[in-house]
């Protein structure tokens, strides 16, 4: 095995296991429980360096061999998959039936398990929600090796706690996902992106508000501002039947104002994270324009050049800092951005950064309900062996 595959965000794994199926994962986790080994799971390794590095990795469970689409019932718009399936492969498997899992492949190569564990979402969250909204059933091997399930194969189901919500975005700290069931959506007949470049935060904010307050039912409403003081591109995605999309596209063009252009191709920055240092910033929707202004000021003060983009229509932005950014400057920007996000009703999380930057600042920031979260962790993983240290508050 090449040595780099045993590295988890700079931490060397004691051993790596690539189980062929759920039974193998369960056996590995039972053994790990017996020997008190710490465990990290991975799929395509695309987000292993997110959050904080684990404090120790005795066993790395590589789920890439568990890459089957187990069951796709087109008539029920439901699919059951193993965690190692790549989003792109899943999309290819569903397309012949005219269906899709309505999540964006924000990080190329991502697997289903990784997207669930990081709750990573892209532009289409405006209309379809995030992976937690699409996940209807989940099987997880608990820290003690016990295989457990919640939810099921039907979209409408309120029997028992919906533990899928808890596992989604838990960064692998509550168990290893071995199966997931999702509700699907039909592929739209037509799609069109309508974009306009706007001079400043106020103009962009007004355009975003106008689209939100219209009845065009956009699938996505994104902004992009590659340089902090520069113009802001507002882009709206419309999906539906061809004549409907044409008519709605005209409506949106009018809302965005002069210079709006439309086409059937997404802009290059669409559904991609800026980086390589990446922050996730949230705010109340109406506070986004103000946040953009203050982020520009904070960038100038910290002497950094963030590339900003994200789902302005739901109040989620991502800021990317160039690789050469001085760690102390990046840290100052995170601290300032965090204060501004808090004032805007949201939070700032440092998703991905070199160790030099993380050394200067807490990646997760303050978390409401942390005491309760620790109790949840204590119940499901009492020995704190699952991805220890990767998550909020050192969980």
């Amino acid at each position, binding site marked *: 095995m090449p040595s780099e595959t045993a590295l988890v965000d700079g931490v060397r794994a004691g051993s790596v296991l690539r189980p062929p199926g759920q039974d193998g994962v369960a056996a590995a986790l039972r053994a790990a429980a017996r020997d008190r080994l710490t465990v990290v799971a991975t799929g395509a390794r695309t987000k292993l360096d997110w959050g904080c590095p684990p404090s120790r990795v005795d066993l790395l469970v590589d789920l890439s061999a568990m890459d089957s689409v187990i069951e796709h*019932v087109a*008539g*029920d*718009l*439901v699919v059951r998959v193993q965690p190692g399936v790549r989003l792109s492969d899943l999309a290819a498997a569903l397309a012949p039936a005219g269906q899709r899992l309505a999540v964006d492949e924000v990080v190329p190569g991502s697997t289903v398990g990784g997207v669930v564990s990081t*709750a990573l979402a892209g532009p289409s969250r405006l209309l379809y*929600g995030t992976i937690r909204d699409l996940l209807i059933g989940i099987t*997880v091997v*608990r820290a003690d090796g*016990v*295989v*457990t*399930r*919640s939810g*099921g*194969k*039907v*979209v*409408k*189901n*309120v*029997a*028992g*706690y*919906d*533990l899928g*919500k*808890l596992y989604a975005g838990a960064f692998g700290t509550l168990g290893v996902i071995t199966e997931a069931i999702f509700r699907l959506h039909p*592929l739209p007949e037509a799609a069109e992106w309508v974009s306009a470049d706007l001079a400043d935060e106020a103009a962009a904010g007004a355009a975003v508000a106008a689209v*939100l*307050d*219209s*009845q065009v*039912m956009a699938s996505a409403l994104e902004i992009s501002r590659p340089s902090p003081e520069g113009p802001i591109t507002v882009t709206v995605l419309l999906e*539906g*039947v061809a004549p*409907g999309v044409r*008519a*709605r596209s005209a409506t949106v063009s009018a809302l965005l104002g002069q210079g709006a252009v439309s086409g059937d191709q997404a802009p290059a920055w669409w559904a991609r994270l800026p980086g390589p240092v990446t922050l996730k910033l*949230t705010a*109340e*929707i*109406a506070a986004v324009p103000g946040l953009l202004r203050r982020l520009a000021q904070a960038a100038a003060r910290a002497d950094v050049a963030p590339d900003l983009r994200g789902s302005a229509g*739901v109040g*989620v932005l991502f800021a990317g800092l160039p690789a050469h950014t001085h760690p102390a400057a990046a840290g100052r920007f995170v601290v300032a951005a965090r204060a501004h996000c808090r004032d805007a*009703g949201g*939070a700032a*999380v440092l998703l991905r950064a070199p160790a030099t930057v993380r050394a200067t600042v807490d990646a*997760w*920031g303050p*978390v*409401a*309900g*942390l005491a*309760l*979260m620790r*109790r*949840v962790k204590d119940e*499901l993983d009492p020995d704190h062996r699952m991805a220890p240290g990767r998550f909020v*508050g050192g969980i």
Partner: protein
Amino acid sequence: MPAQAAQAAQALADRLRPLLDPGAVLTDRQQLRTYECDGLAQFRVTPALVVFPRTTEQGQAVVRACIEEGVPYVARGSGTGLSGGALPHADGVLIVTAQMRAIHEVDVANQRAVVDPGVINLHVTRAATPHGYYYAPDPSSQQVCSIGGNVAENSGGAHCLKYGFTVNHVTGCEVVTPDGEIVQMGGKAVDPPGYDLLGAFVGSEGTLGITTRVTLRLLRLPETVQTLLAGFASTDHAGAAVSAIIGAGVVPAAVEMMDALAIEAAEAAVACGYPAEAGAVLIVELDGPAAEVEHTFAAVQQHCRDHGAFEIRVAADAAERALFWKGRKSAFAAVGRISPDYIVQDGVIPRTALPEVLRRIAALSGERGVRVANVFHAGDGNLHPLVLFDDAVEGQGEQAEEVSGAILDLCIEYGGSITGEHGVGSDKAKYMPRMFTDDDLDTMQMLRCAFDPAGLSNPGKIFPTPRLCGEVPGRRKEAHPLTRAGQADAF
């Protein structure tokens, strides 16, 4: 109530009176009996105390007092739940949120409303409509059910096929947790860092705490709504039409089906004017931008005709649409016109299994001589079989109960669920082991232990057997310390 429990209840009442508004503590037996059941009247328990907090702080004070006295408590909104989720505990406190009914904010710019738990579902939409917005989840009881109850049960409604359930429309909850703390889960912004406690809390049926303030997503009203009512010879034909519509990539706002017996009942009750000779009717509703709906609606009508619809009526205006819906939304109560008693089920099956399952329900009904009327959300396979019986006739109640259970078994056999939107509550806890393994249920109860180790918040619901927190599974040797101390019961 045993004398000791009665004494404890009296002591608790004396303690709570100064903390709450005048008249907010009920101890009179007659008054208490008003609250002995929710919308599922088969289960009745008179609570020891009923209290009406008006503020978060009062709610917290009640919970803290219950914790200190080791007394179980149950939250109740409007009491419309259909699974006995708000069934009181005989020695416990029933916390009724009816006095907490302020709509604090309709924040149009942020597409949010901030409301008290006692606010009526429909009132949120009423407050938002003048601004061009609405609150999407619309359970049939929306004129009376409360947002707090909706949060507890993760309520759905006819339109959840397209728009999802309560959990998809709540962005924040202020919660009095079972340790007496106030925890803010989420808010107006999305994606708070950390575990998605809010996602787990919504739908936990009051077992993880009591919400005292809720932040809801508001949606922009659709530009157009089109609704049709189609009559078919049989549920098979209507089911085939639904398959064709879904198969064509249409996501209707709602697809509802009623069979002949349900139509007969609705007609008798509200004279909704459904095609009298129909073996099944479908209500299909599309909403969205006019340019989309116009095109798709024509296609939907064609699918209905292709699969044998002998009559299609298109609602000309909001009044006619309301009439189409009136028959459907009043179906449960309407069954009272054709049968003295009935059981409402809430099982779910994969939609594609619909024709087969309906045939088996019909066979079951024939074999046992128990009439079953079918009303369901055909788009997502959520069945609401109404099992009819006359309690005055010896043995009919038991027979109906058996048929009802057999229908749930069918749902599980086809890979579905025992409840799509009514919740497990007291009613279906016994069926949970048919759907989940002991390990599955044990894992769910670990979450419960994280929130409520003493098991005081709505005990006895969801889980057929409680997990005593801190125990090692399979190694129970002696009674849990809390049981020994009389602070917890093994329900």
